[in-house]
C-alpha cells in the first residue's frame, strides 16, 4: 500500500499536477509518465522489469507467472535451459531450475499444509507435473487413457490446472479435445466434462481455469478463448453461466481479491500482436483494459474490445502481486521477458 501511495504521489509530481486522468498525450513523452487502464485499475509501465542476460537465462515463450508464499515471482517458459525463472518483485534474478519441461505451459501454485507446490501443464509431454517450489517432482498426472475420451496421448494437450479447497485437481485440455478432467489429490480421475463443440457447455480452446471463491462457495471459471467467453461451472461440471467478452481472446482467469485478471492474447477480429489485459470487477463486468479500448456496456452488452496501444504483442498470463502490481508474460513475442505494470 505504501508503494502504491508513493507511485500515486510521484506520478502527480511527474506531470506537474496536470490532470493525468484526462490522459492528454501531449503532456508526456516518456513511458514512465504514461498511464494505461481505466477506472479503478490504472497502471504505469515498466518494460525493463526482469530483463536478463539472454544467453545465460534464455526464454522462448513466457507462458505463465505466479507469486509464491515468500513473495517471489515465478516465471514458466518452454526453454529447457531454465524452465522456471524465480525473481524478486524488483525483477532481480533469484534462481532458475527445470530442464525437463519442453512444453511448459500452465503454472498453478497451491499451498498444501503450509508448503508451496507448483502444477506444470506440459503440452509436449501431454501430462501435468506437480513439483515442490524448488523443482522436485512429487506427482505426475499422465494422459487420461482411462477416461475413454482419448485414442492416444497426443490428443491430450493440457494447458492449465486449478486446485479446489479439498485438494481436487481440475485440468483444462485447452489445446486437445477441450475436456475438463477432474481428479482427486491422489490422481484418481473422478469426472470429465466440457469437450469441443458449439453448445454453451462446450469449448473452443478451454485455455485457462481457476477456482472462484469470491462469493463464499467454490465454482470454476474457464476461458473459452476463441469464443471470447468466460464460462462458470459448478465443481461437479454443470454449466452455471457465461460471461461474454466480445473481441477479447482471454487466456486464463486469475483471481485477486474481488477482481478477475486475464491476459488477452488477441483482440478485435483476432489479428496477431493485438493483445492487452482484461480486468473484471466482482460482478464480472469488464472495468479496465490496459492497452485496450475503454470497456463500454450498451444495453448490458460489452462493446467489442480492441487494442489501442501496441505495448503488448501476445500477453499470455497476468500475475498480480501483493502490491496489486501486474506482471505480464507473453507468448511468441520475440523471446522478451515479462512487462510489469505498477498500479497507481
Amino acid at each position, binding site marked *: 500500500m505504501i508503494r502504491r501511495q508513493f507511485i500515486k504521489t510521484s506520478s502527480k509530481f511527474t506531470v506537474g499536477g496536470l490532470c493525468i486522468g484526462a490522459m492528454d*498525450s501531449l503532456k508526456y513523452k516518456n513511458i514512465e509518465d504514461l498511464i494505461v487502464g481505466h477506472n479503478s485499475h490504472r497502471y504505469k509501465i515498466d518494460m525493463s522489469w526482469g530483463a536478463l542476460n539472454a544467453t*545465460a537465462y534464455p526464454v522462448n515463450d513466457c507462458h505463465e507467472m505466479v507469486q509464491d508464499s515468500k513473495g517471489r515471482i515465478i516465471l514458466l517458459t518452454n526453454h529447457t535451459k531454465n524452465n522456471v525463472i524465480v525473481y524478486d518483485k524488483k525483477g532481480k534474478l533469484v534462481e532458475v531450475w527445470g530442464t525437463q519441461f519442453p512444453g511448459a505451459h500452465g503454472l498453478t501454485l497451491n499451498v498444501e499444509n503450509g508448503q508451496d507446490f507448483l502444477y506444470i501443464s506440459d503440452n509436449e509431454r501431454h501430462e501435468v507435473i506437480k513439483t515442490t517450489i524448488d523443482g522436485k517432482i512429487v506427482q505426475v498426472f499422465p494422459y487420461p487413457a482411462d477416461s475413454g475420451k482419448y485414442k492416444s496421448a497426443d490428443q491430450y494437450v493440457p494447458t492449465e490446472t486449478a486446485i479446489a479447497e479439498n485438494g481436487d485437481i481440475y485440468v483444462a485440455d485447452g489445446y486437445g479435445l477441450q475436456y475438463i478432467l477432474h481428479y482427486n489429490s491422489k490422481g484418481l480421475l473422478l469426472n470429465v466434462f466440457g469437450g469441443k463443440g458449439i453448445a454453451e457447455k462446450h469449448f473452443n480452446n478451454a485455455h485457462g481455469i481457476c477456482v472462484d471463491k469470491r462469493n463464499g462457495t467454490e465454482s470454476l471459471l474457464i476461458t473459452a478463448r476463441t469464443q471470447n467467453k468466460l464460462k462458470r461451472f459448478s465443481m461437479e461440471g454443470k454449466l452455471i453461466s457465461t460471461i461474454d467478452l466480445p473481441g477479447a481472446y482471454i487466456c486464463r482467469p486469475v483471481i485477486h481479491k474481488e477482481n478477475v485478471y486475464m491476459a488477452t492474447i488477441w483482440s478485435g477480429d483476432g489479428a496477431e500482436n493485438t493483445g492487452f489485459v482484461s480486468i473484471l470487477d466482482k460482478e464480472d463486468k469488464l472495468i479496465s483494459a490496459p492497452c485496450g479500448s475503454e470497456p463500454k456496456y450498451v444495453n448490458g452488452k460489452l462493446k467489442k474490445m480492441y487494442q489501442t496501444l501496441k505495448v503488448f504483442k501476445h500477453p499470455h498470463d497476468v500475475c498480480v502481486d501483493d502490491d496489486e502490481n501486474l506482471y505480464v508474460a507473453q507468448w511468441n513475442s520475440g523471446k522478451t521477458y515479462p512487462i510489469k505494470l505498477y498500479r497507481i
Partner: protein
Amino acid sequence: MTRLLVILFSLLLVSCSQKTKSIDKDLDYLKYIKFLQKTDNIQLAPALVSVDSILFVDKAKVSVDFEYPNAEINYTLNDGMSQKYIEPIYLDKSSKLKFQASAPGFKTSETQTVQVFKVSKRVNPEKIKTFPDLDETYPGDGVESFFDLKKGTLNFRAGHWLGFQSEGIIIIVDFEKAIPIEKVKFSLLSDHNAWIFLPKSIRVKDHDYVIGRKDLNEAIQNTAASLEFVELEIEAGVYKHLEFFIQNFKEIPEWHQGKGTSPWIFIDEIIIE
C-alpha cells in the same frame, strides 16, 4: 607446452566470441527497451473497422471505432484526399479505403486497407464438391461458404474461412442453369505469421477446356496479414459447369520459420461476375 598454450588460447577465443554474442543479444534487448521508453516510439493500434458486407449487391456500410484520448482517424477513399472519419461511410460502388489512427505523442498506426466489392448478384450453385474434402479444423460454413457473400476477417480462426493444406485443391461447381460469366474473383487470406500464403496459380476449366488462368509470385518476405482478391478474366461465355484448380506452393519459402512444410491456403469466397 606450446600445444597447451595454443589450446588455452583457442578456448579463450571461443569463450570471448560466446561472450560477445551474449553481450550483443543483451544490447539488442536493452536497445529495444530503451526505444520503447519514448512514447512517440509506441505505436497506436489500427482502428476497429467493421463492414456490414464486404461483398454487397446494393450498398455497404463501413464503421470505425477507435477511442483513445485526442486520437483521430483519417482515411482515403480510392487513394484520394485524406479526410477525417466522423461517421459511418456508405458505399454503392466497389471501393478501397485506407485508415490510419493518430494521436499526439504516439507513432501513427499502420495503414489499414479495406476493400468492398459490389457484385451483380448472388449465385447459388446446385452442386459444389472439393478435392480434398474440407479440413476438419477450418471448414468454414461448409462448401456453400464459397458463394454465400459472407467475408471472413483477418482472424482465420473466426469462421467463414475454408482452409486447405494440400499441394492442389479442386473445386467443382455445377449450376442449375447455364449462366453468363466473364470474370471470377477469389477472396483469399494472406497471413504469413499463421503460415497462410496465397496460391501459386489458379486455373478455371469448363470440363477439359481452360477458360481462365492466373499465376502468382511466391512471397519474398513476411508481410502483415491481409485480405486479398485474385481476379481472373474468363473467356466470356455461358457456363453450367466450372472446375477451379488451385495450385499451392510445394513448401513454405526459405526465409520463413515454417520453411520446408506445406503452406495453408484460406479461401472464403468465389465471386462470379
